[in-house]
């Protein structure tokens, strides 16, 4: 009896994990922060789909990826990489910036 219910719990957890793991289907794009600048400064992404942004910070200080148009805000630790999901986006330009280095860290996501 104990083995049976344990098996059921494991199956439920596995199912939950696999449901969230299907996010791997979303197209992934990489942004790099170097010398307080985003590279590339213009990133073209497909419109109408959920998109996974991988933001890598190669600087020795933290940055905060922020965008009012995308409604996204996340700290990217020094020498770290974070994942941010956006969309589905209508075609257009979606500017983003690094809140900790607003003058230099600027970019735009172009949804086509």
């Amino acid at each position: 009896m104990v083995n049976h219910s344990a098996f059921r719990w494991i199956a439920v957890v596995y199912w939950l994990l696999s449901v969230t793991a299907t996010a791997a289907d979303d197209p992934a794009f990489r942004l790099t922060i170097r010398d307080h600048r985003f590279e590339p400064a213009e990133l073209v992404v497909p419109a109408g789909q959920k998109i996974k942004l991988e933001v890598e910070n190669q600087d020795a200080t933290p940055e905060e990826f922020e965008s009012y148009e995308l409604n996204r805000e996340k700290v990217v630790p020094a020498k770290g990489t974070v994942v941010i999901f956006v969309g589905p986006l209508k075609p257009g330009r979606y500017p983003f910036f690094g809140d900790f280095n607003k003058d230099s860290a600027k970019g735009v996501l172009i949804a086509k």
Partner: protein
Amino acid sequence: MLGIGVLILREVLEASLIISVVYAATRGIPARGRWVGLGVGTGVAGALLVAAFAGAIASAVSGIGQEVFNASVLLAAVVMIGWHAIWMSSHGKALVTKLKSVGSEVSVGHRPLAALLVVVAIAVLREGSEAVLFVYAQAANGSDWIDLVAGVGAGVLGGAAIGLALYLGLLRIPMRYFFTATNWLLLLVAAGMAAQSANFLVQADILPPLGARLWDTSALLSDRSLFGQTLHALIGYDARPAGIQLAFYFVTVVIIVLGMKLWGKPRSRISGAS
């Protein structure tokens, strides 16, 4: 110095507005200053901790640890406000009567204060951790120390001043409506926090957006304007909300109002029934 001041002001503003609402909502309760102060102190300590562990938090839960942390902490604050609202709806009338007749402080025990202390601590922790990381980044980048201190000082003073203005404005509400007003304001703060937590969960792909952008009122009132940010902190204004943010917002209001109606019965009536 201006750039530093502006960012610090934005972070401090969001926390100071919530502190003001809480301080107003606890009017008449003895030692509320000490409790709110404790909340701020705890929040500052928490902010330093979160900033120190930012790397570990960010990479936790496959890179979405930050969103999980932020959403959890915000939802905890929502629960605390909900509990306080329900408590106030049963004890609130007695409080107002006592305040009007006695005109002095009334003892209500520490539980409602403890709940709001947690809310204050969470608000300070969330905004403070970003501010700490920013100051650290500036210092590490070789910012002039005097610039940094002056910028932080100006930002803190500016944010605190706006919070104080809100508090003084709230005090002008006639006593008859005062606690109803502060309770509704806290309710909207909770709804805004719930909507914010939903946005973090969408950012982490834990929840679907249900419409990534329902409308765009940024031309009417921008998120980045001072007034827009004030409304964001107080009533959860978002110029470009996702559908699920709206859902969280309204469900929170409904649940707390229902809770107030169902469980917020005045004590005398409950003891009368058998």
